[in-house]
């Protein structure tokens, strides 16, 4: 308690310091006056200082003085200061931006109650792959499992929401009643649904509430109209159904489960969002697209998986069927959601960390150079009685000031970079909406700045404090010489910068090599001059044929056709097939595509043998379909596939292979069916129209739109993209890396060039006399210049050796993250050449200066 009082008095003193100081001064003067012999009174100034020391604020005065002194010195060297602040701002800003993403997406737990106990439950299918879980199996899990508290199944779909001025297509999640209780989330307003609630309810997202209902709280209880496509099994076609639903709650913006809803609709949904949740019942025999479970506390993943596997085995016996799952796969929900981006984000974070390290090394280098130039100042201050501690604190204050200024400027860089990255990643990075430059990011940034400032400021400070006054005053003339330690430290920093630049350049090189390879990959399509448009909702099949015919006749159109989803959108629809005459249990996996006949010509996919599909094929019995070359090669090697019979009908023709899921994945065995033949492949998705034009693809859009609306006016258009754009977008992640890592590498290269230039030109200026003497006694100017260049190259070579050694040492580890990190001789050689060239350029100016040295003038200076 008394200590608190003491601190209170200390702070009061601090607040009224100048008044108190005046009082003390007057008091002492009075004292002196009253003394018989005033000259006996001691040194007033010193006495006052000693009295003030009692209050314990002297250090503050020192800091203030150091800050004033430092800002004055820094203002006097604007070139140096700006260089340092800009490189720090770029490095800390970029680091903070990437950190914000890593923090928002990866570090923070998912916004659910005890999210670490949530797991994704998939069934392993006979056709290969894992995913949708059968309704019956889930019921069995619920009834028998002791490892799980709860399960919830859900599925993504789209709905047309009736609005004041027409309709809006929204992403809806059909869930069972356990969905909200499982996640343990509560709504922003209203309530969510749970077991026992009837159908016909809907929970809205905050974004939709804002967009369509102006955040009106009275939306609760309102009835909204929703229509959607539904597969009618008796009519064997997709029908549009209109339903009404009562709004019962609104979920906050943070709640976007399931994440990456757009991934299910790549190519049909323009952005990633979840608009509403609807309680839904699955029919017996149906499947949930996805299922999430909550483990009981303390249950391990392995134990839970083993238990569900055992339940599956029992179901195999008690309820056998042709589509029984082979087993169960359990993944922590966070891994399932974030897995696809986690590696990439950590790699980016690592890369930006390297940039930060390079910037630190560079700033330290600049500061060392300055310290060397200020050796005289340091010596003078030391001679005047500055203690090593005061000298160190003075240098540290200077570097802290630089660090904070850099950090302040870095906030702007961070905001800007983050806005850019979130803009690019919004639809692709899960939880992108949770990314923010929040206080964690600022705390991180502040910590980075302080650590960085101490790192680059401490070395010069200690060296300055240790500088031997005699050694410096002994040095001739106005040139300060510095200890060997200075030089070694600066060389070391340059070597580190070169090594870091090398590592980043290698990373960038790897990404570019990969992009180059993918760009050269044969996609199986002719993408030039092709426009794609996604049409939704699903309309009667005959309308598709009518639209195809109308569009084909438009001037400037060479071909047109429909496909359910444009290739390269990471989308697959898996089924199986049985080839007549093969063993009964042989049901190989296939990918299903639904098209209209014009599709192949529109995308330039060749028909290798047999015939194309036709509109009339739908009514043929047995039906006909096309297969791709991979299918033909795999199942009919060396034979003609055309005319072969299967349980899905006859093979009418063979078409060329097309890269479907991603550009990097070779074509899988596929079959193409005409649109009105296929049994309900995600009917809510609508169809994509592909138009091959003879001119600029975008120019065709207005006339195509008019033709489509003329056939069916309810159609809405989404994702209008040229096919080249679709291809480029499929590489967005690599492209993003190319830009980011390329930028990082360029930054590091620039920094290393600056560092090298600084060291070499400093070396030149401190050896001017030696060079002058060499020239005076007849040395060849080009020989002297070569000395300088050689030194630069030696440093570069050392940096490259460290860089290559360091990179090779971690390559095995990095390769586990990505195949991009397989170094090849070509990239390695190119980067070595690049670095050597940049180094030579950095050393060229000092070298030229030396070769033009006039020995007479140079020597006269001393």
């Amino acid at each position: 308690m008394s200590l608190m009082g003491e601190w209170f008095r200390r702070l009061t003193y601090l607040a009224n310091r100048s008044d108190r100081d005046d009082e003390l001064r007057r008091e002492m003067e009075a004292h002196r006056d009253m003394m018989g012999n005033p000259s006996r009174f001691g040194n007033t100034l010193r006495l006052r200082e000693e009295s003030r020391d009692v209050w314990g604020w002297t250090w503050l005065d020192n800091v203030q003085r150091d800050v004033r002194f430092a800002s004055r010195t820094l203002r006097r060297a604007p070139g140096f200061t700006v260089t340092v602040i800009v490189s720090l701002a770029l490095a800390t800003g970029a680091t903070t931006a990437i950190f914000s993403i890593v923090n928002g997406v990866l570090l923070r737990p998912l916004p659910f109650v005890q999210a670490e106990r949530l797991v994704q439950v998939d069934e392993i299918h006979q056709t290969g792959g894992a995913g949708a879980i059968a309704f019956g199996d889930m019921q069995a899990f619920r009834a028998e499992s002791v490892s799980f508290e709860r399960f919830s199944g859900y599925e993504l779909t789209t709905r047309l929401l009736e609005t004041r001025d027409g309709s809006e297509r929204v992403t809806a999640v059909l869930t069972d009643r356990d969905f909200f209780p499982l996640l343990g989330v509560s709504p922003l307003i209203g309530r969510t649904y749970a077991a026992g609630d009837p159908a016909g309810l809907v929970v809205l997202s905050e974004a939709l509430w804002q967009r369509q209902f102006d955040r009106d709280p009275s939306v609760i209880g309102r009835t909204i109209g929703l229509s959607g496509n539904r597969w009618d099994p008796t009519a064997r076609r997709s029908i549009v159904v209109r339903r009404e639903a009562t709004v019962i709650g609104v979920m906050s913006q943070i709640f976007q489960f399931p994440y990456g809803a757009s991934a299910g609709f790549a190519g049909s949904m323009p952005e990633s969002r979840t608009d509403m949740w609807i309680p839904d019942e699955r029919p017996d025999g149906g499947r949930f697209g996805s299922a999430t479970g909550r483990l009981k506390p303390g249950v391990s993943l392995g134990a839970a998986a083993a238990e569900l596997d055992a339940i599956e085995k029992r179901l195999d016996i008690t309820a056998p069927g042709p589509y029984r799952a082979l087993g169960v796969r359990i993944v922590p929900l966070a891994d399932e959601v974030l897995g696809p981006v986690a590696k990439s984000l950590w790699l980016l974070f690592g890369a930006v960390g390297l940039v930060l390290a390079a910037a630190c090394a560079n700033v330290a280098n600049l500061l060392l150079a300055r310290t060397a130039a200020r050796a005289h100042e340091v010596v003078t201050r030391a001679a005047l009685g500055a203690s090593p501690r005061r000298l160190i604190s003075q240098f540290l204050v200077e570097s802290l000031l630089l660090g904070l200024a850099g950090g302040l400027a870095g906030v702007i860089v961070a905001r800007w970079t983050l806005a850019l990255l979130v803009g690019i990643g919004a639809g692709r990075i899960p939880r992108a909406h949770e990314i923010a430059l929040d206080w964690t990011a600022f705390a991180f940034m502040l910590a980075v700045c302080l650590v960085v400032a101490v790192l680059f400021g401490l070395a010069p400070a200690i060296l300055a404090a240790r500088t031997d006054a005699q050694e410096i005053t002994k040095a001739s003339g106005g040139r300060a010489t510095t200890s060997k330690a200075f030089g070694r430290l600066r060389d070391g920093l340059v070597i580190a910068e070169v090594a870091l630049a090398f590592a980043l350049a290698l990373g960038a090189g790897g990404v570019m090599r990969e992009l180059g390879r993918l760009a050269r990959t044969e996609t199986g399509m002719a993408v030039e001059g092709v426009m794609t448009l996604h049409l939704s909702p699903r309309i009667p099949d005959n309308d598709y044929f009518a639209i195809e015919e109308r569009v084909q006749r438009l001037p400037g159109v060479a071909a047109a056709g429909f496909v359910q989803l444009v290739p390269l959108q990471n989308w697959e629809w898996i089924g199986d097939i049985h080839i007549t005459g093969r063993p009964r249990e042989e049901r190989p996996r296939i990918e299903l595509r639904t098209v209209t006949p014009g599709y192949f010509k529109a995308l330039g996919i060749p028909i290798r043998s047999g015939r194309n599909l036709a509109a009339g094929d739908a009514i043929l019995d047995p039906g006909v379909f096309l297969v791709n070359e991979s299918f033909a090669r795999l199942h009919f090697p060396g034979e003609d596939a055309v005319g072969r019979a299967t349980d899905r009908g006859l093979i009418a023709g063979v078409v060329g292979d097309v890269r479907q899921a991603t550009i990097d994945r070779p074509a899988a065995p596929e079959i193409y069916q005409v649109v009105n033949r296929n049994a309900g492949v995600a009917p809510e998705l609508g169809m994509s129209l592909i138009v091959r034009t003879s001119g600029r693809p975008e120019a065709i859009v207005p006339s195509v739109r008019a033709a489509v609306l003329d056939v069916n006016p309810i159609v809405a258009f989404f994702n209008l993209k040229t096919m080249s754009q679709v291809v480029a977008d499929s590489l967005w992640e690599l492209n993003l890396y190319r830009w980011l890592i390329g930028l990082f590498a360029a930054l590091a290269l620039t920094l290393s060039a600056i560092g090298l230039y600084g060291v070499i030109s400093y070396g030149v200026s401190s050896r001017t006399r030696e060079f002058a003497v060499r020239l005076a006694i007849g040395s060849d100017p080009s020989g002297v210049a070569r000395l300088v260049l050689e030194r630069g190259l030696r440093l570069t070579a050392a940096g490259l050796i460290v860089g290559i050694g360091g990179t090779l040492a971690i390559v095995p580890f990095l390769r586990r993250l990505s195949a991009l990190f397989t170094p090849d001789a070509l990239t390695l050689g190119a980067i070595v050449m690049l670095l050597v060239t940049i180094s030579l350029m950095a050393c060229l100016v000092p070298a030229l200066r030396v070769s033009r040295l006039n020995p007479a003038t140079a020597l006269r200076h001393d």
Partner: protein
Amino acid sequence: MAREDGLPPGTLVMLILRVLASQPLHGYAVARRIAELSKDELSVEEGSLYPALQKLLLKGWVKASPAVSETGRQVREYRITASGSRQLDLERQNFTRISHAIMTILETA
């Protein structure tokens, strides 16, 4: 540590507090009072007096208020506080105990 003013170490605070316990005084008067009472045997140097007074202020044992000296100068008058009185009692007991012990040794050894 031997002092030129003849004060045993650690006793300055106690003496100042004791002097102020009788009446509030300004700095110079404190020094005078100590000298007078000790018949000029003890003298408090300014160099010790003012840091000591700051320490008393910091500890909350005295309070300062503006006053005018006999010569018409602005000074601060120091007044002992309740906690200052307690501190004085404490230091006084300690001092008595220790000086008694020292005297015992000096007389009996």
